[in-house]
């Protein structure tokens, strides 16, 4: 075999080899009819952003986690820079079809100093003391959603609570009054929880009231955390709305869960919360896929913040998704995230902003 013959043959078939790239997946999204679960309807839902700034500087948190060994390290073993810590919490006000309004708290943030400050600013402390808040939902036991549990319990230790069944052992201990604060930025809780505790799992849909349900998803997250509780609402004449802490299962998972399982599940009206996409303002081509996927559901109102990633929200809006803009209220808080200072597009619902579905 002469080398020249070999090369000629090789060149002649290079086009054929290149065709291999055109062999695509045969998968097609098999559209299904909506499921049968029917948990009723509500008139409206108002979500108030108590705080979405879980930390104030991405680089500082990133450095803390990296020094501890990376994003797979146990969250209770990372030494965090304490002045960087904030927290995530939202007040959810649900108006039933008869006009009665119930209040719920989603998550309890991270730094007790910060959570005490934002709770006082929005009157959450008084609502808890007066037992105006019906239930606390802990979406998941990540640092920024759960480490500040003392800030809630010190005002209402017997509050009814939904808690993810996959939470870490230390997170259950924290509920009972453990102290892990020897490690900087790690929590303590001097007020053990005394109220009803509903530990959620994937087996069932937890109906909270007519038109409102909680679904637990066993989804992976970082820092050895798993699972997230998600709130679903069915708004009369509009469709389904999801309210999330971080949305670790993925917004498309939530929309598809509704599509598969809920009555009229193809009608998705909106969402609020962290969508866990470009968490540290990083980008991956798969985030473009999420924009494409969400567009296919024709949502009417998307309220996002926290771990969504500012750049995802901006890019999604440019692609035509109905991103709800926030205001400049967050600028009046005693601390403002470094990214918020550098951005002006207000594609986030920031601290102090509200949205009604």
């Amino acid at each position, binding site marked *: 075999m002469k080398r020249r013959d070999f090369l000629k043959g090789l060149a002649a078939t290079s086009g054929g080899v290149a065709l291999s790239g055109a062999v695509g997946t045969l998968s097609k999204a*098999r559209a299904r009819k909506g499921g049968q679960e029917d948990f009723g309807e509500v008139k409206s839902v108002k979500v108030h952003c108590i705080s979405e700034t879980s930390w104030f500087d991405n680089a500082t948190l990133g450095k803390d986690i990296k020094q501890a060994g990376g994003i797979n390290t146990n969250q209770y073993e990372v030494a965090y820079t304490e002045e960087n810590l904030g927290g995530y919490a939202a007040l959810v006000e649900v108006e039933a079809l008869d006009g009665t309004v119930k209040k719920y708290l989603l998550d309890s943030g991270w730094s007790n100093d910060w959570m005490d400050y934002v709770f006082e600013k929005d009157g959450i402390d008084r609502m808890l003391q007066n037992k105006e808040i019906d239930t606390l939902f802990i979406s998941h036991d990540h640092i920024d959603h759960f480490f500040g549990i003392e800030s809630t319990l010190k005002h209402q230790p017997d509050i009814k609570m939904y808690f993810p069944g996959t939470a870490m052992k230390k997170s259950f201990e924290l509920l009972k009054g453990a102290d892990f604060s020897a490690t900087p930025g790690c929590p303590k809780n001097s007020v053990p929880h005394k109220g009803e505790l509903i530990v959620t799992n994937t087996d069932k849909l937890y109906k909270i009231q007519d038109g409102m349900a909680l679904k637990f998803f066993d989804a992976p997250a970082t820092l050895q955390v798993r699972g997230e509780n998600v709130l679903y609402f069915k708004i009369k004449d509009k469709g389904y709305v999801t309210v999330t802490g971080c949305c670790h299962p993925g917004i498309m998972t939530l929309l598809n869960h509704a599509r598969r399982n809920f009555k009229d599940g193809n009608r998705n009206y909106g969402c609020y919360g962290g969508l866990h996409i470009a968490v540290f*303002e990083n980008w991956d081509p798969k985030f473009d896929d999420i924009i494409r996927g969400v567009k296919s559901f024709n949502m009417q109102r998307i309220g996002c913040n926290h771990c969504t990633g500012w750049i995802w929200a901006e890019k999604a809006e440019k692609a035509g998704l109905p991103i709800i803009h926030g205001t400049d209220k967050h600028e009046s808080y005693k601390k403002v995230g470094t990214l918020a200072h550098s951005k002006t597009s207000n594609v986030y619902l920031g601290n102090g902003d509200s949205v009604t579905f």
Partner: protein
Amino acid sequence: MSSSPKDEFWLEERQLEPRWALAASGLVNLGVWIAAVFIVWWIVFSNEGIFKLYTPLLGFSLVIWTLLIILWQAELFDFWPFSRRFLQTAHPLAKGAVFTAITIAVYLVLIFGIVFFIIGKLGITYFNWNSLMEFGELGQDMNSVRENTSWAMLCLSIPFFLVSVWFMRGVGKDLFYELKEPKFGLANWLFVVVIAIPLYAVFFHPHLGSMFYPQQIYTAVPPWWKAIAHTNSAEYTLGILFCSVIGVFYTLHLWDGWPLNLVRRQPWRFIYFAVGSLVIGYLILRIQLWIFDWLWHEAYVGGQNKASFGWRYSHTVTMANFVLVIALVQNLFFGAFYEKMNVILRSIIKTVVAIVLGLGFAWGYYSWGPLLLGVTEGVSHPSENASAFLIMTINILMIQDLFMDRWPGYRLKK
């Protein structure tokens, strides 16, 4: 003294025999391999270990390149510059130490020296995480830059691996046959480079250019496979090409080279081998995607974790690797069991054993991995990629087989 390719390569020349009874030799080797796997994993890779290189992509990119370098040494360079005498007489532990050290040295020079430090600093931003951090701006952060650079290294390795396999097995000594080592190895290796770099540019660079905000369309076209793959991610092309590499190893270790050995005359042998490997790779990917659809419902555009098209493409590689590890262990440690069987029968039995035990291995990994290896719980965890572990185990298998004559259970025939 270097060998001529007209002569037999060391791997063709050497003859191995079990040191004890076949079962005992195989089991001892299995035990040594398992012990080595745990030791290396816990020292170098595990998040609970010392160096914590399982990030996971940093570890993945490292083991895929070292595996390729191991194969280059054995199958392209015929262990140059070491003499036959050294290969015949040196203790397997000494040979293992020397060639493993060379592997690490080549990795440091080629990947960290040339790709990371020179190209990443002076040419292409994404090959160096410090450059990414400095120039990447939006779209990059300190937690993602190391993974992004590692992903780029991993992507670069795939066409190199595929084309290397084409040359090592689909060309063999048919090209540059008159050259002695190291010229023979170098000539073939340069040919690999010439083909692999354009393949990388076509199949992976569009993904890398889309890792930034805004998308770097002036230097990389948007992923052209979006419409057919339902994702912008190059996990699609990675899935097909990586499964093609794995498919070649299936043919070698399960089916005695069939069907890729049917054509003998060049250039048809090479063309048939290359196209055939892609067809086998696509089938491995496609069949698994059907199984995933059955297990987890259909994937959807923008889905995350198990519902992500990209993750599923990538997971076909992972599952194929579970089977491959078993296929290699079976063939290298216990292959003599099958020698007297009819070739079709033994191919069927070996394939069934590899698939069944491979699935059992996967079940064991995902059930006990968090406890035994310190990996993160969950099949589709974003911080988890079992292929890193699996390729590391293949590295150790190859060191034991190619460098150490399958010591301690086997030895060179006198």
